[in-house]
Structure formats: structure tokens, C-alpha cells
């Protein structure tokens, strides 16, 4: 506390911040944060696609449960979803490592939001296309699969990247259940050194910012490119 800022706590523990106990122990730090975010992003894309398609189904018996589920998840804080998964998954499926519990919780939570993006994307394709495709004799799933989805998904790419940014931020909650991602690693170091909370939390804020801002910028760039090619 004598000097204003002391960055030696960062430089001394830099490797630990980046990869945790790897390679002689499990991966942690930034490495684990990215792993959690990427794995959850892939799973929640699949989950979101399924939920999204179910929620625009012509059959009420399919549509309403899907909508109810989406709203249930969207109504809960992510922290609650994590706690629930933490309780439910082992009871339902037996032993599951925490990393996977967190990935499943993040995926479930993000799927609900992804599904809304997908529905919006589908709505964004002019109705005329569906009608035209149907009148050529295609079945409704074929219309969706060959005509609507390929265009809709392309338009949604920027929104997906934004969801990925949210996921990177959300992985910080994994700290609560003891998964050694960046925030957990930072609290470990903070707990051990005790004198440098300002430096440590400012440092990881900057790391998160760099990661997220890079993807936000990518998303904006994609948005411009896509709107440009649409204009042609």
C-alpha cells in the first residue's frame, strides 16, 4: 500500500494468470476461460437452433413447451442456472466434472438467447421466399433447410459473435463453483498476496476487455460487410 501501484504481482504470476497449473496440472486462467467460452458457444448454437426451430413450429404442442422453456431460462439469473445444474446434473446423470457442469449451464442459458436470435433471423427473410419455395413443391422442412436457414444464419453471424462476447464475460461466473478460470485464478492470487486487489482486478478487467473488444470489433466489421453484400 506504500506505493500507488505495484505490478510485480502481475508479472510474478503471469504464467498462472494465463494457463493456471498447466501442463503439470489442469488448464486454468485465460486458457480455461477461452475453452469454456468456445465449448459453450458451439453447444449453445446447436441448442439455440433446435429451440428456435421448435419455437416457430406449426404445432402448438411443440411450440408452447419450447417457448415456455426459453422463457423459463431467460427469466433466471445465470448464477441460478449454474446452481441448478450443479444440483440437478449429478442427481440425473451421476458424476460430471465441474468444467462440464459449467459448460452445460452456460450452453443452456445461452441457447435460450440464441434461439431468439435465430427466430429473429428467420423472421427477417421475406415471406415471399417461403411462398415461392412452397409453390415449387418443396416440403416445409425443405424450405427451411435449403432456402430460409442458409440466408438467415448468414445474417445472424454478427449476433452470434456478440453472444460469444457475452459468453466470455459469463464464464467469470464459473468462479463461484470453483472452476479455475481467469476470475478464480485472480481471486486465488488476491487471497494469497492480499495487498494488491486494485492491480489484480484491473489487470484481469483489461484482459477480458481485450478478448471481448476484439470480438465486438469483428462482429461490427462482419455486420458492415454483410450489409454491403446484401445491398448488392
Amino acid at each position: 500500500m506504500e506505493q500507488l501501484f505495484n505490478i510485480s504481482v502481475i508479472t510474478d504470476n503471469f504464467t498462472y494468470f494465463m494457463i493456471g497449473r498447466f501442463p503439470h496440472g489442469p488448464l486454468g486462467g485465460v486458457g480455461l476461460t477461452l475453452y469454456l467460452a468456445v465449448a459453450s458457444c458451439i453447444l449453445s448454437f446447436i441448442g439455440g437452433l433446435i429451440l428456435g426451430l421448435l419455437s416457430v413450429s406449426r404445432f402448438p404442442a411443440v411450440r408452447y413447451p419450447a417457448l415456455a422453456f426459453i422463457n423459463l431460462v431467460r427469466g433466471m439469473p445465470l448464477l441460478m442456472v449454474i446452481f441448478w445444474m450443479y444440483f440437478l446434473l449429478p442427481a440425473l446423470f451421476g458424476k460430471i466434472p465441474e468444467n462440464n457442469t459449467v459448460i452445460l449451464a452456460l450452453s443452456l442459458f445461452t441457447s435460450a438467447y440464441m434461439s431468439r436470435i435465430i427466430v429473429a433471423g428467420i423472421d427477417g427473410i421475406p415471406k415471399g421466399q417461403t411462398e415461392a419455395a412452397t409453390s415449387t413443391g418443396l416440403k416445409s422442412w425443405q424450405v427451411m433447410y435449403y432456402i430460409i436457414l442458409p440466408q438467415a444464419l448468414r445474417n445472424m453471424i454478427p449476433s452470434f459473435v456478440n453472444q460469444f462476447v457475452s459468453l466470455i464475460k459469463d464464464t467469470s461466473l464459473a468462479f463461484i463453483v470453483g472452476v479455475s478460470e481467469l476470475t478464480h485464478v485472480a481471486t486465488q492470487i488476491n487471497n494469497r498476496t492480499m495487498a494488491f486487489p486494485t492491480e489484480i482486478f484491473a489487470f484481469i478487467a483489461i484482459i477480458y476487455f481485450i478478448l471481448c473488444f476484439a470480438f465486438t470489433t469483428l462482429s461490427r466489421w462482419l455486420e458492415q460487410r454483410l450489409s454491403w453484400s446484401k445491398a448488392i
Partner: protein
Amino acid sequence: MKKLVTLCMMVALATITVKAAQAGDTLADVKKKGVLTVGCKDSLPPFGYIDEKSRQIVGYDIDFVNAIAKKLGVKVELKPVTSASRMPQLQEGHIDIIAATMTKNAERAKVIDFSHAYFLTGQKFITKKGSVNSLKDLEGKRIGTAKGSTSEKNVAAAIPSATILSFDDYPQAFLALMQGKVSAVTTDEAILAGILAKAPTKGQFEIPNIQISDEPYGLGMRKGDTNFVNFVNKTILEMEKSGEAKAIFEKWFGPTTQFHLERTFKISADK
């Protein structure tokens, strides 16, 4: 309305399908997979903390489970847990044994099984020097501790007028004390001594001689996991006999450390 109905259905589903992890034969399982998965603290010197150089978890608790694993002929996998997460983790089968400064008490013994006590300490306070001489001085004050710990319950009973702030772990509570956010941090003396020894401004703090409870630590295992509990108990009694248990104590708390604690207990079979 529909959402509420669905929710109720989900809860009902959960009700039906919920079954707590069964206590199989952990001893046989661990031998079969060749790994003993241990829930430990990862920022609580000298019980369990990350060594800055090796980036691995070390400490008093760790040495005990290492000895047990060695006897079993298996490897150790360490999983960091908090005071609040360790029991669910054990019950759900994420870990095989808890070695995380866990106090044996009757309430917990209803849910899990404990080994004999492998460490003995008592709950005290850490405060700014000279600010607290008796429990009275803490009345109506803000006191920090950790979520889900016995310390939290003990202090609420001992000083009902105090505001208890529960953090994820003790060092965070101590940080709050250093910054003046709480007037005292309470937990077991050995943990407090560990925190104080590592504190950058240790001269400003002290541990007044006020004890509000005895805290025997036990290794936690799933309820009814008799073979495993017997094996662990046998092992730690042997460690006491051979002097290994004492050596571990000396290594982490003895005169060569910053703590200079006296070993006032021996590991023995509980009545």
C-alpha cells in the same frame, strides 16, 4: 400462467428423478481408477494453497491425503473447494474425500462421515491491534467470515448483535479487515495464524485470546462408506504411531515456520 405450470412440472420432474449419489464402495472405486480425487482449499496457507513457484497446491491437508493415497497406491487429484461447496461436491461424487479444514460436528455428521480428527484448533478472532479485549468489544460490530463454515454459525450464536458478513473464503474476509470494512475476522486459530503470517501489514493485527469454540478437523467421506472410512482412520492412526503425522505438523506449523504452534493433540480413535 403457462410458464408457471411448466415450472411446476419441472420441479415435479426434479422431485421424481432426484436421487442423492449413493455411497458405493469408494475404496474399491478409487483403487480401480487409480486416482483419489480430493476436495481441498487452494488459498489457505498452510492447509492448502498454491505454491507460487511450482504453481501446485501444497499444505498440511494435502500431505495427509498424499499419505493416504500412497498407502492405497494411487495418484492424487486435487480439486479446489470452498467451505460452501465441499459437501455438495462430495455427495454428488465430484470428489472422494474432503481435506479442507472441515470441522467435525453433529449436524454435518448426519449427512457425511468423518475420519478421526487430524487437527485440533479453536475459533478465535483477528482484529486491529488493541481494538478488542473481550467479546463485549465486538457487540454490534461487522465481523467477516466464510460462507457455509462452522465459524459463521458459531459467531452468530456467540455475538447475536454483530453483523456477520460471509465471504467466499477467509483471505477475502481478511482483506476486508485490512481495508476497514469489518472490525474482525473470525475462524479457527490455525487458519487465522496462517493468514496473519502471510499478511503484508501483519504488525497492525493481532489474535486476542478469546476462544468461542473447539474445532476438531476431520476428513469428510460419503455417508455409509464404511470401508473407506475405516481405511482412512487406520491410516491416520498409523501415521500418528510412526511419527509421520507429527512430522507433517512440524513441517507446516512447527518452529521452523512462521507459526510456532505447539502440537497439543494426538490423533486418536474417537469414543
